[in-house]
Every structure is written in C-alpha cells, then in structure tokens.
C-alpha cells in the first residue's frame, strides 16, 4: 500500500525554486504516481524493467532536459534536471538510473564531444526515447580504476576495429547505441558510438541482482567490431571525457537520492502515526521520534547541498570535487534513511507492500556506481590535502 506522498520541505527551500521548477516537479511527480507506483513493486519482484517507461519518459521530456531545444532537449537549467531526478528516484532508483544514463552518459557526451552530424543523428531520437543508449566504461577487471581499461581499437584505414568487454552496464541489452570508452593504439582513451547490430557486438544480461531489479544491467562484448570512423566522438581525448559524463550523472544522483529518502521518510512517518502498540501510536515513543527527527534533519541538509550545487552548476562553477561530496553524502543519507525507516515499520517494512526495502536494496547499487562511497571520500581527501591516496 502506498501512502499519499507529501515530501518534507522543513526549511521552505521551495522559496528558492522558480515557478517553472515547481511545474517540472509536479509534472514528473504526477507521472511517477500514475505510471510507476502502481507497477514498480511487481516489476522489481519479477526482475523486470517495464520497457514502455522509455517512451513515456521521452514523451514527458525526462531525457536531456538541459540539452538545447534544437537537438530535442528542453533547454532547461540544472536545477530542473535535479528536480526531475529527485522525483524519478522517489519512484525507483532503477527508473532514475535509466534516465541518468540516457541524459548524462549518452546525450551529454554526444552533445558536448560529438560532431554536428552525430548530434543531429542521435540526440532527437534519444530525447523522445525512440532510441535507447548505454554507457560502457567499467570492465570486468577495472571498476574504480577505469584508466587501466583493456578495451582497445585499431585504425584500419576506413574503419576502427574494436575489441574488449564492458561489465555492469545499465540498459546494455535494450540499448540501440552504446557510448564506449576504449584506448587507441597510442593508449589514449576515446569515445566511440557503437550501434546495435554491428557484427561482433553482443550484450548479454546480468541476472540475479538483489538491487536495481527494475533496471536492466548487462555486459557489452566486442569481438572485432568494425566501427565506422564517423562514430568516433571527435572533440574529446583522454579519460577526462568519461569523467565529465560521470560528473553530470553524479550531480543528478545527488538530487535523486533525496527522492528515495523522502519516500522512505513519508512512509515511516505516516505508518508510525497509524500503527499502535501499547495502546499508543508508535510515533509517540521517543525512540521512534528520534529516528524521524534525525531522518528529517538529514534530508534537510541534503536538500541544501543539492540546491547549492545546482546553483553552482548553473553558473558553471561546480567542481567535480563538490559533486563527489554531494553524491557521497546524499546517497549515504538515503541509505541510512531507508534502513532507519524500515525499522520503524517493523516486519511490514520488509514487504513489497511498502517501498522502503526496495529503495534500500536499490541504494546499495547507487552507493557503488558512479564512483564508490570510498572513492568519493578519496577525491575529497586528495582535494583538501593535495595528496592522492588512490594508488
């Protein structure tokens, strides 16, 4: 059973949003309430991503909101993007992941590093959801250290020959195109657009996940794949390109995680007022109040962090290190919130009748992908000391 969703705004941060941001929020919230909430538990239980979400997300404009209108985006600011992510993740981190990948890891690099032809060819279809994209960086042997990647391509004169494998790739099996990061013969990381159906390219699915069950994850395998030369992203060289994509996605996750947390908090608060033990609502006991009060404090701090990060990103002043801190803090906050909220529901908390356990399991992926919790801490550590502790 789902309670009516009334997320907290304890410090009246709504005053800092424009009317337009609020319309964006209500639109995405309505879509989630109408399309996601009624089916998401069953989808997750069955380890199934509802494919029609792609078309609906495209129709509503949840893909590439900050991409200019001429390429099919909405030309919105980064706070609008953040607000969209928060609302989608209230529904499920898997749905938010699909939108994050499409927007930040596929549309963003094609827009930022692609040729004009590439932009015109792919972006409008990615924006409508007619075309699905995925992003291949992680490999079986290289996760936190993507710079050591083994996937390579050779210049064969009239095309490139791509070999290697990527793992843990969101949307892999359903994607029409993959933005793949691979090294050229000089060892320089470049981005290539690999299309479904190119001989030698396969994308097997990864099953048996306990997390992000309503999201597709899989591999990308390249065996002598001939990639046309015009599919190379011309305007970026080095790992920096992939990292810039991750920055955009991590920014969205810093906002998104708050949505999952607010859904848990809303559920726990309403349940605690309804559920009686010892002839009183459990909300009347100090221990439960402590949990709720701390959760609300945590959420409020995360909201401030996300909002300020949004302002900085709009001004093009948000550093990757600030984004790391916000992603790390807000995801951990959401995971803690899910765990505490789950306890407030007692046994009911473990069932699919409430969204908390699903959020909690999803967040275990969110705290690992897009840079692990540890790696983001090291990024802050390196930033404040000037000494990298990675290797």
């Amino acid at each position, binding site marked *: 059973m789902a309670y009516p969703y009334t997320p907290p705004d304890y410090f009246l941060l709504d005053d800092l949003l424009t009317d*337009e941001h609020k319309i964006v929020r209500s*639109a995405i919230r309505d879509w989630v309430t109408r399309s996601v909430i009624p089916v998401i538990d069953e989808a997750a239980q069955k380890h199934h991503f509802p494919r029609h979400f792609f078309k609906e997300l495209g129709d509503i*404009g949840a893909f590439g909101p900050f991409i200019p209108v001429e390429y099919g985006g909405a030309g*919105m600011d980064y706070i609008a993007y953040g607000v969209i992510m928060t609302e989608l993740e209230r529904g499920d981190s898997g749905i938010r992941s699909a939108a994050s990948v499409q927007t930040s890891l596929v549309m963003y690099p094609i827009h930022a590093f692609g040729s004009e032809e590439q932009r015109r060819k792919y972006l409008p279809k990615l924006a409508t959801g007619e075309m699905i994209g995925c992003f291949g960086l992680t490999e079986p042997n290289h996760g936190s250290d993507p710079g050591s990647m083994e996937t390579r391509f050779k210049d064969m004169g009239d095309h490139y020959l791509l070999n290697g494998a990527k793992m843990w790739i969101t949307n892999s099996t359903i994607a029409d195109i993959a933005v793949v990061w691979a090294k050229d013969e000089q060892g320089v990381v470049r981005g290539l657009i690999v299309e479904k159906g190119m001989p030698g390219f396969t994308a097997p699915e990864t099953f048996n996940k306990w997390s992000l069950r309503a999201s597709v994850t899989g591999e990308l395998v390249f065996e002598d794949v001939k990639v046309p030369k015009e599919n190379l992203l011309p305007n970026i060289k080095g790992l920096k390109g992939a990292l810039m994509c991750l920055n955009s996605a991590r920014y969205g996750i810093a906002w998104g995680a708050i949505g999952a947390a607010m859904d848990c908090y809303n559920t726990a608060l309403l349940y605690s007022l309804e559920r009686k033990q010892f002839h009183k609502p459990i909300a009347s006991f100090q221990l439960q109040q402590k949990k709720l009060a701390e959760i609300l404090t945590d959420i409020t701090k995360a909201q401030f962090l996300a909002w300020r990060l949004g302002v900085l990103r709009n001004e093009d002043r948000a550093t990757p290190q600030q984004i790391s801190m916000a992603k790390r803090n807000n995801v951990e906050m959401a995971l803690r919130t899910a765990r505490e909220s789950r306890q407030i529901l007692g046994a009911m908390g473990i069932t699919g009748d409430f969204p908390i356990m699903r959020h909690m399991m999803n967040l275990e992926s969110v705290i690992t992908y897009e840079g692990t919790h540890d790696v983001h801490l090291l990024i802050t550590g390196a930033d404040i000391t000037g000494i990298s502790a990675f290797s």
Partner: protein
Amino acid sequence: MKILICISSVPDTTTKIKPTGDGKAIDLANVQWIINPWDELALTRVLELKEQPNSKIEKITVLTVGGRNAEPTIRKALAIGADDAIRVDTEPGDNYFTAFQIAQALKNYDSDIIICGIESSDYNGSSTGSMIAEMMDLPSVSSVSKLEIESDTVKMNREISGGFEVIEMPTPMVAIVQKGIAIEPRIPSMRGIMMARSKPLQVVESADVKPLTVFCSYTLPSPKAACKMVDAENMEELVNLLHNEAKII
C-alpha cells in the same frame, strides 16, 4: 472557434486543511497549489478536440481570477497546451464575486464556448459557472460529461438521475463540465513547460464589486470516534452498546 476555460487554483487534494487560530480563514502556509481537477479535465478535453483532424478550434485561452501567486497554475495550463491566458488581478471571493470578475473580463472578449468546472475542489460552491452565464446573458448547460463540437453547435451529454440527456446548443454558450469529460488530465512535458514561457499572459484589472457572502468561521469535522470491538459470541454486550450508547435500537 475560440474556447475559453476558467481555471481556478486550489490546494493539492492531499493537503491537510487546517483553519487559522481564530477560525476565520484557512491556513494556507505550505500549501501546494494545483489546477482545479475539473478545470484540468476540461482543458484536456478541449486539447483532444483541437488535435482532431479538421478541428475548428483556433485558440484555447485559460482565465483565472487570482493574485500573482496563481501564476504557476496558469503557467501549468499553458505548459499543458493552452495558447494564452488571462489573469484577473484580485483574490477570488465568493461565487458571485468571482463570476462577476470573469463576466466583466470577458465583456469585450469574444469566445464561442466558455467552459467551467462544475465546482472547485476547495470551496465546492458549484455556482460560478451558472452565474457567469447569467451575467453574460448566455445559455448554459451544467453537469456536462461529454462534449463534442459539430460545425457551429456543441453536442453534450448532461448527467441526469439514472442516465444522461443529449443536448445540442449553438454557440456562444457556457458549458459546465464534470467528471467523465476526459479520462485523465494531461501531464505537461518539459518542452511544453519551456514553451509556456513565451505564451502571452495578460493581467487585467479587477472590477469594483463586493462579495455577497461573508465567511463566518471554519471548523474541521469532529474526529471519528474510536471503534469498539465486541466479541462475536457476546450478543448481549452488542445489544447493550447499540441500545444504551449508540442509542439506535
């Protein structure tokens, strides 16, 4: 054909309504505002009609009586697909006051069909639509649950006890619509929201008129009494409670 839809800005239906301390008003702090559900369905229906092939609808205008804080609601209607908007710059009062403001604003505005929701989900006054028609000297049909446009006439279903009437009426006219007029309200797309930025929103001065009603006080319904459980075997206790406590037998 030009269609004008009156939309009001109402608290989100999940809002926990509470009166202010003195009970003379409703506490509106932290309220999220939405388009009145019936008005939103009306807009959805008119958009469906406009999108039909050979549609005669040239323009859909939305009108709100409200202060600056009603503008997000208007922008949302524009984002959903209305072409332009009018805001009568005053806080809405009773039905008479609001209807008067609308009739006044529409005096020099030519529209073929004026559509209102059957009521607003906050005060549920249910009379603004008929009052507008009366003040503008236009025919009106209430409880409209289906609306089609056929050349110069409007064909409607009007809900009546146990069934519905099919009514045809020439324009100009006022249609007061209810549930069923459209299935689900439309959700604005992100592009629609951006396009709404450049759609015209005209602010007009309010007319000098006083409400005819005074709101004296607001009270919440008294909380439901706790449910008493009686053992299925214990008929005597049940009868006793029904007789002595509930006093219904």
